[in-house]
Every structure is written in structure tokens, then in C-alpha cells.
């Protein structure tokens, strides 16, 4: 009998020990993530999930996620349930979650809500995003240097400023090393549809593109490029595993530092609702490792440019920037403001395609 009690007490103690330690060191904290697509092996949600996994390593932090949550009413319910279950911080990682999150945030003023890629805020709801266009520019430099046909293909999801900004940055990067380079755009009107994305890439290959870039979640376009024996530029996460012979590099997300920073701030009580738009300097966006086919000279010039952007010496959208009709959109000697970047609704010269 006594032995049994002893075992019981020991078990209870061991069970509580981690909790006790956590309270002694820091308050335990529960963090929830809402993803729009399945995590999978690559892509947008995969990149966010890598950030979540980094949080799991912090003492006293537990995380959970729900994936493939469609925007609209379903997402509202998922966030509501996280808040009801006492999650301290909720990260929602798709634009379409914005209004639902705002509704839930108003009902749970003590929970911290973080929305990725939107613009609405509340006292307990901030938003965050990264200056992906900086990494896009660098990937454009690689593509512009590697192309022989001077035609770069770009499989793009939706004609919204975020995507348009990326295409323009890519085109400017390509033109900076190869003035003859032009970027052909095909809209798929989907974020994630491997078959459609691959077909769109093939249509670009048929008009002579020999580097395929993408603003999509699946590696479908990468595979299309590899099958044709040409090059590709990935997106979101390093996609080289899907097309090792084609993959030049990829502009990638690296959310871990920002997620850690946010959790730490909430814990210390210093978190404040803000609109965060970090860039390459803070490490939220970066370039995936170069494929071995990229010559050293190109790597060096891209890395030099990266240092200049990180150091703040150079800006991607510095004038003169002309749109497709030749109208000057950013005057010489000036750089586009954040407002202009967030509202970008034109293609720069050298992009072939329409905004529809």
C-alpha cells in the first residue's frame, strides 16, 4: 500500500515538474496557428509551420495548428475555438482571415491576435508581413543572368498588389543584369492547385520561356521546368528537392525569428499592436541556396546586391520606374514609399501580361 502511494506521489510530481519549472522560469504560453492549406512538404503553410516548430523549442511554449482552414466563416470558428480554449497568441496566416480575426479579437480582448498579410488592426490584433520583393529582386537577377531566350515565365496566383509587387521586383532584378529580359505572366487564379500551376508553366514554356518563376504554393511549375530541361525559381520554401536540375534558387520565408520575437514580447508584457513589415535585414525573407549550375560570378554579384539591400544602401523600387505604358511611376532619385508599394497596381516595363 505504502509503496503504491509512493509511486503515485512520484508520478504526480514528475507530471507536474515540467509545469513547475516553466512557472518558475517563465509563464507557460499557448500559441495557435491557422493555416489556409495543408502543411505538406513545401510552400506557404509549410514555411509558417517551420516557424511554429521553432517556437516548440522555447521553454514553456506549446503550439498547435489547424491546417486547410477555408477563409470566411470556417476560419472564424477555428479562431474562436482557440480563444475559448485559452490560447494566448493566435497567428492566422492568410489574407482572407482578416475580418474574421477582427470579429474574434473584439470578443477576446486578453488574447493576442496576429494576422499575416492584412491591414486591419485592433488593440489586441496586430499584423505582419515580409518584404518578399527584396528577395524576388535577387532571384530575378539570377534568372536574368541564366536565361538564353531572354524570356522569363512567371506563374502567378492572383492580380493583387502583393503578387504584382513580386513580379515587378523580379523583372527589375532581371533587367538589372540583362536589359533584354522580359517577364511573361500567366494568372492561375488559385494559390494551390498543382495541376493548374503545372499547366500554366507549360504554356509559358511553349512561348519560349527558359526560366520559370512562380508565386504559387505547389512545386508544380518547378517540375514542368525540369521536365523541359530548363531552369526554375521556386517560392516560399526551398523547392530544390522537387526539381534539383532546374532549381536555381528561391525567394523564401523565414518566420522563426519573428514568431520568437512576438512570443517573447507577449511574455514580457511589452507586446503592442503594430503593423510589422520586416525585410531581409531582419531575416524574415531570404534567398534559398543556389543550385550548382549558377556560376560563381553571378552568385557574387547577387550576394553583393543582397548586402547593399540589407545595409539599406539600395532600394528595389528606386526611380526611375516606368510602367508598361512608359509613364514614370517612381521619379528618378526617389524610392517608392510603403504606401505606394502596398497599393501597387501596375506592371513595370518589360513585363508582358495584363492585370486581369
Amino acid at each position, binding site marked *: 500500500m505504502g509503496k503504491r502511494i509512493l509511486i503515485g506521489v512520484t508520478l504526480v510530481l514528475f507530471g507536474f515538474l515540467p509545469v513547475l519549472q516553466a512557472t518558475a522560469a517563465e509563464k507557460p504560453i499557448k500559441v*495557435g496557428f491557422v493555416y489556409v492549406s*495543408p*502543411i505538406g512538404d513545401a510552400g506557404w503553410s509549410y514555411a509558417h509551420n517551420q516557424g511554429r516548430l521553432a517556437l516548440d523549442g522555447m521553454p514553456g511554449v506549446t503550439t*498547435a*495548428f*489547424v*491546417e*486547410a*482552414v*477555408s*477563409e*470566411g*466563416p*470556417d476560419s*472564424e*470558428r*477555428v479562431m*474562436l*475555438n*482557440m480563444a*475559448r*480554449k485559452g490560447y494566448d497568441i493566435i497567428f492566422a496566416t492568410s*489574407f*482572407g482571415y482578416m*475580418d474574421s480575426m477582427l470579429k474574434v479579437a473584439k470578443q477576446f480582448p486578453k488574447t493576442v491576435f496576429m494576422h499575416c498579410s492584412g*491591414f486591419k488592426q485592433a488593440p489586441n490584433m496586430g499584423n505582419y508581413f515580409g518584404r518578399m520583393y527584396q528577395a524576388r529582386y535577387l532571384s530575378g537577377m539570377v534568372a536574368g543572368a541564366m536565361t538564353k531566350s531572354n524570356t522569363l515565365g512567371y506563374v502567378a496566383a*492572383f*492580380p*493583387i*498588389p502583393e503578387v*504584382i509587387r513580386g513580379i515587378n521586383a523580379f523583372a527589375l532584378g532581371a533587367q538589372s543584369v540583362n536589359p533584354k529580359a522580359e517577364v511573361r505572366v500567366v494568372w492561375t*487564379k488559385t494559390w494551390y492547385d498543382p495541376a493548374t500551376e503545372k499547366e500554366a508553366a507549360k504554356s509559358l514554356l511553349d512561348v519560349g520561356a527558359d526560366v520559370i518563376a512562380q508565386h504559387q504554393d505547389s512545386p508544380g511549375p518547378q517540375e514542368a521546368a525540369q521536365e523541359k530541361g530548363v531552369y526554375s525559381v521556386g517560392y516560399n520554401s526551398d523547392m530544390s528537392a522537387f526539381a534539383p536540375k532546374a532549381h536555381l534558387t528561391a525567394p523564401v520565408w523565414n518566420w522563426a525569428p519573428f514568431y520568437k520575437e512576438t512570443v517573447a514580447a507577449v511574455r514580457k508584457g511589452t507586446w503592442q499592436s503594430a503593423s510589422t513589415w520586416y525585410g531581409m535585414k531582419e531575416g524574415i525573407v531570404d534567398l534559398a541556396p543556389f543550385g550548382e549550375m549558377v556560376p560563381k560570378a553571378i552568385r557574387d554579384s547577387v550576394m553583393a546586391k543582397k548586402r547593399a539591400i540589407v545595409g539599406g544602401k539600395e532600394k528595389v523600387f528606386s526611380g526611375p520606374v516606368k510602367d508598361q505604358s512608359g509613364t514614370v511611376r517612381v521619379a528618378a532619385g526617389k524610392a517608392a514609399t510603403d504606401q505606394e508599394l*502596398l*497599393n501597387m*497596381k501596375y506592371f513595370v516595363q518589360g513585363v508582358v501580361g495584363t492585370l*486581369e
Partner: protein
Amino acid sequence: MVRLSIHKRQAPLGWGACFVFLGAVAVSLVLSGILLRIQGKPAVAGIWLLIRSAYFSVYAVEDCLIKAVPIFLCSLGVAFAFRLQVWNIGAEGQYALGAVGASWAALTFPDLPGYILLPLMLLSASVAGGLWSFIPAFLRNKLRANEIIITLMLNYIGIFFLEYLVYGPWKDPTSFGFPMTKNFSAPAVVGTIGQTRLSWGLVVCILAGIASWIFFRFTRLGFELKASGDNPRAAQYARLPYTRLVAIVMVLSGMLAGWAGLLEASANLNRLQPSIMAGYGYTAIVVAWLASLNPLLIGLASFLLAGLRVGLEILQLDLQVPAAFGSILEGLILLTVLAGGFFTRYRLELRRRP
């Protein structure tokens, strides 16, 4: 040697059907438990969590009812058409058009008071949804076109039309180029009942359900529909106006799906955006069959299915199983229950061969 033979039941199963249903649910839950176990998750606790968070808490019931509203209206609509053996697969498109119709009124007359604007939205949603389902009815009656194909194809056209509007003329200029209309003005939003999150749409559902039950049970038109559906050729001999009936059920069907679109846009999203398309129109078909086209059972089936989805979400969150696992469980449960329907119509007999 034992031989298994299948016989059609002579008399309907009556209350026994309930036991078949419950038995099928039990079988599917056991199978789900085994799947959970294979995933390395607690089987019994997992299934209990699923059931509890789907149906046995105040939050759960509220969430289920909210999600059940559009499924119910779409399903009630397709059940009208199915009764007549007209295969309307187009609830998805009719729902889209209903949302478009309602949004048109909400965006064009934002300043009207609610008691005028909401009926106007209801009217425009009904017209838009009804028109979208009248097209296949017309083509079927005049050109003998196959309504399955026409309604299915019209879904894509309807959804593309919705997308054209939110990407183009109706796009909110302050949305940073994202595809969505402006927020509806306050009078255009269907309010909530008291302190709950439930909208008055729920009351619309209850009324519509009761009305359709009365319609089939007590009206002449309802009787004609049932008679023609059971045997179209006999109905034509009896000089029932078959083509007119086809047009009527299709328009009713489209109107009900249109109302679902209105309620989702107004009460849930407060605007029109592409994510309003959540596949309710297709879910509705499964629900209608599960409920054997009975309006009251459709209500129950919508609630149960909505609950299943809500519960699976919680299962994902608390046990951290992948989303695909939730879809597998949903498919498994639906399939088992539909397959269970077999035993309400047939019985198995074991015979020892001499």
C-alpha cells in the same frame, strides 16, 4: 455449406430504420477509433472528444446551427428537384447567384432602412438564384437537354461571374486590390438573435422547412410533384403538367439556394468575396439523400453533418491530426451511413445448403 442471399424487403422497415442508422454510425465510429489508434492517438478519448465537441456543448450547438443554415437551405432546394427526379446538381451556382443578387441590392441601396432593404435583398437573391435554375429547366423542357450537365456547367459560370464582380466592378477601392466588395451597410446585415451568434437566418430555415413539409403533405401541387416523381410516365398519362412542374421545382430549388447565398454574404461575411464558395451546394446533395428527401430529416441531417465538421476541427486542434485525417473520417462516416441505407431496403439471409 452456408450461402448468403439478398432479398428485397416487402414492407418498409419503419422504426427499424433508426436502428440501422445508429448501427451504421456506431460501426463508423469504431472504424474511426481504429484509424485514430493507427495514428498513435487515443481512440476512445478521441471519439468522445469528437462527439462532445460536435454536439454536446453550448458553443458546439451554436457553431453547428450557424454552419447548418446554408447546408440546410441548399439541401431543401435540391430535394424539391430530386422529388421530381430532376437532377439539379447546380445548387453551388444558384447559391453564388443568390449571393450576387443580394449583394447587388446591398451595394446599390446601402442607405435604405433595413425593413425595406432586407426584403429587397431577399427578392433580388430569389430572382437571381431562381433565374439561374430556370435556365436548365427551360433547356430541358424545350430542347430535352440533360439537366445534370447543364446545372453542373452553370455552377462554373456562376462562380466565375461572382469572381468577375469582386475582382472588377464591385471591388472595394480600399481593399489594397484584394477581391472583395465593401462591407455591407448596417441595414443590409441580417442581425443575430439576442446575445447569441445565431442569425435570424435560422428562423428562415425553420419556416422554410415547415412550409415545404406542409407543401408536400397538404397541397395539390405538392401531391402532383410527388406523384410525378414516383412515376413520370404515369403522371403524364394522368395529364399532370410535367414540364410546368419541372420549371416550378427548379425555380424553387434555385431560390432556396439563393437564400443560402444571401444569408452567408449578409450574416456571416458582411460582404461578397470569393471565399463565400465553400462547397455547400455539393454537400447539400449528400445531405438530401441521407435524409431521403424529407424536409424535416434534412434539417436533422444538416445539423449532424455540420456538427461532424465542427467536431473534426476540434479533433484537429486538440489531437493535432492532419486536416486530411478529418476528411477521411468524414468520408468514412458518410459512406458507412449511406451504405447502411442498403439494409433498410434489403435483408440478408443465411441459408444452409443441403
